């Protein structure tokens, strides 16, 4: 969340977010529908944020774009599905605590497996092609193809169900507003993770190193820090987050297919481009923008809903070609 060389934090993008939210209210009219859609939009946006924040940091830090990132999302979703299936008794219980006994392991397992896969990926697939952008794009795309097929081998080609825990199904009814319980949980979790990331980046030495490294990794090395190791750590963390996001997204959709990762990739690219490659704050605002726009437009004009995010990206790029919070690289 490093602002460019401007004295104050740039508040225009968050203001834009607010404007869109209010614009949505104006266009939709009905406040309770608006609330439902906004919660859905925020939930979706925050889940996308969880899935994409790692990718943008990795790019900012090491100039590496992992086109196979969707893989970690898919693996997370599949692992969660398997765990939840194994603990299905706990999943269906009416007690929240028992549910948690299934939800927590599923999320942890998803993050852990995805993180481990990330470690393997960085060492075997990406490390040999540091700095060679062409090969990177090709190799990571190829890695994704192979991995997708392996998922087929391990889990079969069919759609897997990923049920939400029993206490999180259905909606809260407030007046005539229906707010899905799971979406609310997603929002809370997403905000918590964002807060944790901000804390890490701004209050810890590692965060300091990451912020400095994104700006000028050469200088950080010249100061005696091993940026390579930092990069591996960030890569693994990003993959784990993607896995967690995938698990949650799978629950949001209530099913998992191999394409879950690939389908997200276009959206994730749009989000990190809008946000500015390398900026976590930009990724956050971008993700929320995409989430809200997708839901509002999906309601107002379903036909253009799918393409609306790409149009959003084009508009943002016309305004700020480097994204909302451009990185000032040395």
């Amino acid at each position, binding site marked *: 969340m490093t602002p460019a060389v401007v004295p104050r934090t740039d508040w225009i993008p968050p203001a834009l977010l607010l404007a869109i939210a209010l614009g949505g209210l104006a266009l939709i009219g009905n406040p309770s529908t608006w609330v439902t859609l906004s919660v859905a939009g925020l939930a979706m946006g925050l889940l996308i944020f969880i899935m994409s924040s790692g990718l943008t940091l990795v790019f900012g830090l090491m100039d590496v774009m992992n086109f196979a990132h969707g893989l970690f999302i898919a693996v997370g979703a599949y692992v969660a599905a398997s765990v939840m299936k194994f603990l299905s008794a706990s999943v269906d219980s009416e007690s929240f605590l028992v549910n948690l006994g299934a939800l927590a392991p599923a999320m942890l397992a998803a993050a852990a497996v995805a993180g481990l896969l990330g470690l393997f990926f960085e060492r075997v697939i990406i490390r040999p092609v540091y700095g060679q952008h062409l090969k990177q794009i*090709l190799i990571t795309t*190829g890695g994704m*193809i*192979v991995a997708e097929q392996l998922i*087929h*081998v391990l889990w079969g080609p069919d759609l897997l169900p990923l049920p939400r825990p029993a206490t999180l199904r259905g909606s809260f009814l407030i007046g005539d507003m229906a707010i899905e319980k799971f979406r609310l949980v997603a929002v809370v979790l997403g905000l918590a993770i964002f807060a944790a990331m901000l804390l890490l980046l701004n209050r810890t030495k590692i965060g300091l190193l990451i912020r400095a490294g994104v700006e000028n990794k050469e200088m950080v090395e010249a100061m005696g820090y091993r940026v390579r190791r930092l990069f591996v750590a960030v890569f693994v963390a990003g993959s784990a987050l993607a896995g967690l996001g995938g698990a949650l997204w799978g629950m949001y959709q209530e099913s998992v297919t191999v394409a879950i990762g*690939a389908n997200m990739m*276009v959206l994730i690219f749009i989000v990190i481009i809008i946000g500015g490659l390398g900026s976590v704050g930009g990724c956050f605002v971008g993700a929320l923008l995409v989430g809200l726009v997708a839901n509002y437009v999906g309601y107002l004009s379903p036909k253009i809903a799918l*393409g609306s995010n*790409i149009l959003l990206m084009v508009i943002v790029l016309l305004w700020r070609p480097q994204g909302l919070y451009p990185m000032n690289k040395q």
Partner: protein
Amino acid sequence: MISKFLSGDGPRSRILAGMLAAIFVALALAPFLFPGTRPLDVAARICVFVLLVASYDLLLGYTGIVSFAHTMFFGIGGYGVAIALSKLDVGWSAIALGAAAAVAVSLVLSFLIGLFSLRVKAIFFAMITLAVASFFAILASQLSDITGGEDGITFKVPELLRSRNAAYYMVFGMALALFLALLRAVNSPFGRVLLAIRENDFRAEALGYRTVIYRTLANCLAAVVATLAGALYALWLRYTGPNTTLDFGIMIDILLMVVIGGMGTMYGAVIGATIFVIAQNYLQDAMKAFSEAMKGVPLLPDLFHPDRWLLWLGVLFVLSVYYFPHGIVGQLRARSKR
């Protein structure tokens, strides 16, 4: 004499020359060597994809640009012809009109994309082309009045093309002509400048070559050929739809073919496309047999399940990028140098 025909860019390897000759003969005489609808269909697909992949090689292998929007141009060609033939009277003028319109659209789009490509880094560019292609696919499936939506458009073709053999020779002839044209282009001064830009664009610019212009031209040429390939494909299938042209899987297939065959060689497209299309159609049977034989062994039957053929090609692809950047053609040529 043959050398002149091939614009001086010969195979440079006996084995490769042999393979190319064999493929050429097989394709030229396909209706007679392999009677039956399926083999002829395979042959026609090979012709189309050789052309499509060769045009992509121009972008990736010679200019060093990774674009994920190539299937978009392929689709534009297909849809151009399909829309023309379904809305207008079936005839050669409709085909010409459709193809011309498609080429025009492709030129404009590729021109814009080309202008954009110099201002941004390769990775950013690749991501944007992904978004653009995806947008186009969405458009195609949403504007169903014009494009037939998810179902695509089936249409009739003129008298002459109703005969399978005649249609095949049209596809074969056009593909051959356009391929040779591409070969000519990459061996011309233009092609050499492209190679120079790929190696070190900074130096090329310093030498006085406006890299923007060359990259844009390469982009446009590749797009136009892809469009024409799309038109040919549509005429062969008598159908165009999102899944035959715009599917991201096809983009992946192109990548596989160009890398495994050999980037920056043109002939790599021939080898890669041939291997791929044949594998797509016949390898699965072999794998099925193997998989059944392996029943009972853990994991192996699944790894060799016929649907998993893409897994093995993917592995081959990854290995090629690391160890054999010039693919099969490169390996064969290196071998014959010894």
